């Protein structure tokens, strides 16, 4: 993690379909970053609600990522599209109350790649 990110808190919501072994794969990150990163696996990214995102910010996250599967690959057909809509909606909400839109970010994975949560997280934190 870059120095500039030190001390920042992250919340990462991700669709569990993207990494079947997420519970094991994310451990190296959990170990390294401790309470700085919180993972919230969800059964489908479409399950994300504005309330989830607001609560994550409320509980101190400086940056919230929502990771969805590639378009067209959702197991429940349109979950990832819904996730995007809800994220946009929440971005507008937080902007209205004076927070930066950028605190919420949608990461849509590219089709045809195999992702693991740990690699993905390291990429995100750059």
């Amino acid at each position, binding site marked *: 993690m870059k120095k500039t990110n030190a001390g920042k808190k992250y919340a990462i*919501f991700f669709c*569990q*379909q993207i990494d*079947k072994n*997420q*519970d094991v794969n994310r*451990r190296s990150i*959990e*170990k390294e970053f*401790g*309470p700085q990163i919180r993972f*919230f*696996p*969800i*059964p*489908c990214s*479409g*399950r994300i*609600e504005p*309330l*989830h995102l607001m*609560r*994550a910010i*409320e*509980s101190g996250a400086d940056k919230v990522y929502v990771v969805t599967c590639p378009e067209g690959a959702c197991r*429940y057909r*349109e*979950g990832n599209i*819904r996730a995007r*809509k809800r994220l946009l909606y929440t971005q507008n909400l937080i902007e209205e109350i004076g927070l930066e839109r950028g605190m919420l970010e949608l990461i849509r994975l590219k089709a045809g790649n195999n992702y693991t949560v740990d690699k993905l997280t390291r990429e995100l934190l750059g």
Partner: protein
Amino acid sequence: MAHKYHILTSPTPARFKPITKAGIIAWEEGCLKCARCVKKDCVYKVYEKRSLDSRQMLDSLDTACMDCFRCVQNCPNRLIQKSINPLYKALGDNYWTPEIIENIWNQAENGRVPVSGGGYHGPFSGPGFDAMWTDMSEIVRPTRDGIHGREYISTTVDLGRKLMSLEFDSGGKLISSPPPLVEIPLPVIFDVLPWSPGGKGINLAFLEAARNTRTFAVIHQADFMTDMDEYVPNIILFADDDVLKLSKEMIRRLKIIELPDSGNVMAIQEHLKKINPALVIFIRFRLSRNASVRAAALAKEGAEVIHLTANENGMGKAEDPLFIKDRIRQIHSHLIEAGLRDEVTLIGSGGVAMAEHVAKLVICGADAVAVDIPLLVAMECRVCRRCTEGISCPVDLENIDYAWGASRIRNLISGWHNQLLEVMGAMGIREIRRMRGEMGRAMFFEELEKEIFSGMGIKGLINGK
């Protein structure tokens, strides 16, 4: 009639929302705005009472739903689906399955025995304990008052060495002095954990629950602290550090000390007994191919209680291919052949995950059973083993309130006690001491298979053996 053993239970809610088997996936987009939405018809008011647990971001939609599928079936636009919760599937491992964990959670919460309304859905047979069936022939003839009524089924066992005969002098005076015995009302003691996060709450919860259920908890010598002082009557001190470090005063106050097996273990036993003759000594060792021989040697030399341990999955040392129940059967039979069985007490531990496992180990020849992981699961452990990797515990077990933990353990043990009574009632056995080693009242899948198929020239069907 003896006073009935009864464990007081009280509902003790979990601190974290439990991980449930299935989740709801419901879309709002595409909603037809029916005059009466199916969500309003939920008998359990799951949608109306929806809330979010922000600590875990768990939606009450998932945790409160009772899986009746009414909303799923009735939504005209099929906007509601139920899916298996991947978090549930990730609980535990192959041995400590999500079903076992969930079952323990439920029992710890309310103290009731698990009931699966739709009958038994499990496989016909499986590895380990599942390859053994107990004879439930008496289940068709419930005793007149039922097992919880006037009928008394005793689950009491004695821990210690037993005399095989009494000796008298020429004047008819008794000269043999009986060795000390400790009686527990349930053949279950609490063992040290193979892993757990730090914090003293866990040990204190074990001890408080041991006191409430009138049994014992094994505590590592190094873990003993002054605030456990009041629990000394319920402690089995595992002297795995240095037994010589124990003060004489401590040795005199303890009822049971457990020693790791070693070449001079009998000499240490003698040394301790000189200080406190009322002390019962356990000798603990890991199951292995040589366990029968070692157990017989110890029994011959005067061992009182032998504590045989397996790993979390019920397996002995690496080279030992036998599951705990099979290894204990072998040790039990070996001791009988050597004419030593009734002199010593055998305790088995490792891989005991359900009440039926207690009954099964007793039938295979253990006098009592030591339980470990289920006690931690009772306090919401998810068997994720993050604590072994130094990652923080997802259910914050380091900081539990020990009284809360003890209450959950008590509920679980009460559930197990009741299930033990069910098994014994169904077998027509009223005294657990008589159930020990009653292998004729059980069937073992591997043996049946051999018996039936070997004559036909067919090799074993399971495990490809």
